[in-house]
């Protein structure tokens, strides 16, 4: 099998995904919960991709870097999806009359709803 250098990554790479999912399970409100899975999509992803790149590069004795594709794609799309989700949640909360930003003193941004003229 491989040599020595890929095992450091192999050992330490798993915690962020689990921590992110536990955070998703334990936080109280949705706006807190939205933070937790990003642990898995940044550090958890990068460590596993680094381990995979190390392992295949050593096993095939040539540089294997196609895992970067997944890394680029997931890091680009996760903020987009979560931003969409929080926007939708804010709209739904305001539609039901419980504005989570109501007590803040800053000037409130107007969320444009699709039914406004």
């Amino acid at each position, binding site marked *: 099998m491989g040599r020595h250098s890929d095992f450091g990554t192999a050992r330490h790479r798993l915690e962020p995904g689990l921590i992110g*999912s536990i955070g998703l399970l334990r936080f109280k409100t949705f706006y807190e919960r939205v933070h937790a899975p990003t642990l898995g999509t940044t550090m958890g992803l990068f460590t596993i991709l680094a381990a995979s790149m190390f392992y295949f590069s050593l096993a095939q004795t040539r540089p294997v870097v196609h895992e970067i594709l997944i890394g680029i794609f997931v890091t680009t799309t996760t903020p987009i*999806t979560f931003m969409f*989700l929080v926007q939708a949640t804010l709209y739904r909360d305001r539609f039901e009359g419980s504005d989570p930003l109501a007590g803040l003193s800053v000037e409130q941004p107007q969320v444009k709803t699709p039914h406004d003229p």
Partner: protein
Amino acid sequence: MSGQILAIALTISKIFLTLAMAAAASRILRGPRAQDRVIGMDTLYVNAMLLLLVFGIGSGTTLYFEVALAIGLLGFVATVAMAKFLMRGEVIE
């Protein structure tokens, strides 16, 4: 010896990722509102993708990488479509 370390690390990885997927699935089942279930599904597919990558390291073939890439692409589209549905009530206007 080093192969044994790799096997142990892979097993621990699989166990942890399975626990993470169980936590995400529990959030899908328990989630008080629809957006909680959507974010649980997003976490579930990301963890499944990571688990496939770990399987790929264990088996030594690049087939799992392609499956993980497809899961990443389709999961993004699915989550964006569901967020849009929550916002507007329909996906394609």
